[in-house]
């Protein structure tokens, strides 16, 4: 055989590589190029005009952009941390249950089936200041006699979005951490009990290290699609009122499709892509570190 034959692993990976290049890589290269042009959807000829890093400079100088950037990071940090803590709490609660645990586990997965856009509409409805469930409940119970403008006030809107986001994603953490709890060996915990450890000590020094890889898996999986929050925010407030809940993604979507400034939107898109990649690589590294600590790497 003198002909070159590609190794089998390459042949097997080829379909995946082809489709990912066609749908992700090539469009991204195009958007990289167009981020250096003043491309507008309504005027196709602008695609061929090179303006250098003007769009990036414009984004960096824009206060709206930085506000959205900061708010995105703030939302992600708060949401991911709280989801992790609440997921851990929920998993510990369910893990203690001995009777009917299967049913509880199934109930726990309920929010995972909701499309993010559905979560958006659902919470837009629940937090509606006039007919929403929350205000109705507060008023009926006499806790408040005014309609609280959940989605109109900037800070309350941010809070409402956070609640919606946490509702939809906490169960991912809970399910994965619960799977981790099942894998924790019994012996060291019993040994610790005999040696006089308090429940907190044995949790902190035995259980937690064991479930750490599972927490990082959950974080890695979540970091792969944190941008799902876009659907929720777009429906609930669409960045409003007056940009007070504007996230990077809603800003990009509006600039690209409503204002039709594709070049500028793509430049901001690139910044958001690097943000996502940074988060993902960070959690994958943590995952690898946690794995090797348990001797499971390789």
């Amino acid at each position: 055989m003198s002909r070159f034959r590609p190794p089998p692993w390459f042949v097997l990976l080829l379909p995946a590589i082809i489709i990912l290049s066609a749908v992700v890589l090539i469009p991204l290269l195009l958007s990289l190029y167009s981020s250096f042009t003043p491309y507008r959807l309504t005027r196709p000829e602008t695609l061929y005009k090179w303006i250098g890093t003007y769009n990036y400079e414009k984004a960096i100088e824009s206060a709206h952009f930085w506000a959205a950037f900061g708010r995105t990071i703030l939302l992600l940090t708060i949401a991911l941390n709280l989801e992790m803590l609440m997921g851990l709490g929920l998993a510990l609660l369910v893990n203690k249950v001995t009777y009917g645990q299967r049913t509880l586990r199934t109930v726990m997965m309920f929010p995972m089936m909701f499309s993010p856009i559905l979560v958006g509409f659902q919470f837009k409805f629940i937090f509606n200041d006039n007919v929403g469930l929350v205000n109705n409940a507060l008023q009926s119970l006499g806790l408040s006699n005014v309609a609280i403008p959940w989605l109109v006030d900037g800070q309350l809107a941010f809070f409402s979005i956070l609640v919606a986001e946490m509702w939809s994603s906490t169960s991912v953490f809970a399910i994965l951490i619960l799977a981790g709890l099942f894998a924790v060996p019994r012996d060291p915990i019993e040994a610790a009990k005999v040696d006089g450890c308090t429940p907190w000590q044995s949790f902190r020094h035995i259980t937690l290290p064991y479930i750490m890889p599972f927490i990082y898996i959950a974080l890695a999986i979540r970091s792969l699609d944190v941008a799902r929050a876009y659907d929720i925010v777009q429906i609930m407030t669409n960045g409003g009122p007056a940009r007070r809940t504007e996230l990077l993604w809603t800003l990009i979507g509006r600039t690209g499709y409503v204002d039709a400034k594709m070049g500028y939107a793509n430049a901001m898109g690139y910044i958001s892509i690097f943000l996502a990649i940074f988060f993902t690589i960070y959690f994958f590294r943590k995952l690898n570190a946690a794995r090797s600590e348990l001797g499971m790497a390789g």
Partner: protein
Amino acid sequence: MNENLQYRIRARLLKVLHFVTLFIAMAIICVPGLWVVLNSFRPTVEIMAKPPVWVPGDLNLDNYRAMFGAVGEGGVPVLQYFTNSLIISVTSTLIAILVGMAGGYAFARFRFKGKASIFIGLMLTRAVPGVSLSLPLFIVMAKTGLIDTHMGLILVYVALNVPFTIWLIDGFFRQVPVELAEAAEIDGCTRWQAFWKVEFPVARAGVASAGIFAFLTSWNEYALASQLTRSTFSKTMPVGLRDFTSEFTINWGGMCALAVLMIIPALILTFLVQKHLIAGLTFGGVKG
């Protein structure tokens, strides 16, 4: 004696506390979803009533009737959306599974240079936010005429699902001992036969759960679909939800009915596969 009693009281208290916390947590998880289901059976007038009607007085199937009657309020062609969603999700899932199986097998069974970086590279394509991707995709699809077609969205969803499918399936194939396939090959199977007759049946549950994950992603995806579909011929249900909103009002009842229609298939599939799903995610991640 006193110490004993104290201990018992404390244990009892902790138990009650545990139960109460668990109950509250589960209620928070369930109520928003059940609220949607309940409202799908109520007329919009009652949903919007002020002061609120807490005990539903008028439960009926009007919203569903309007939805399937094709000429319902606002004339939202729900059945067409349902078909679109079904065609797009099922086709893209099948393709993603085939591509993912090839890729996952490559990662599980072969050693090669740059394996870890290729793997991370594939994963990173999934991390690209939908909005950022939708802008260039919109341009490419508009140029190639794939916009507003089933084909276009299917391609996009295959690409969206492949990285994760590879990750899951890789984890499952790793659990199948190499010796099994080797033994089959010694017995005279070709590598191809060994795969389909020995390795695939063992990892089948894992492949199924990866498939359901892919299906749910396509079924629920909104950010890309909202930009790449324009007409009733290709709109999926998540995009169709927006048809119930007009500039100043939202038809909550109708929307809740469509929401229930969206959740039911997802619900059934998730329950069927939940055990494998958890195992797949954790094995793939921890031992991978």
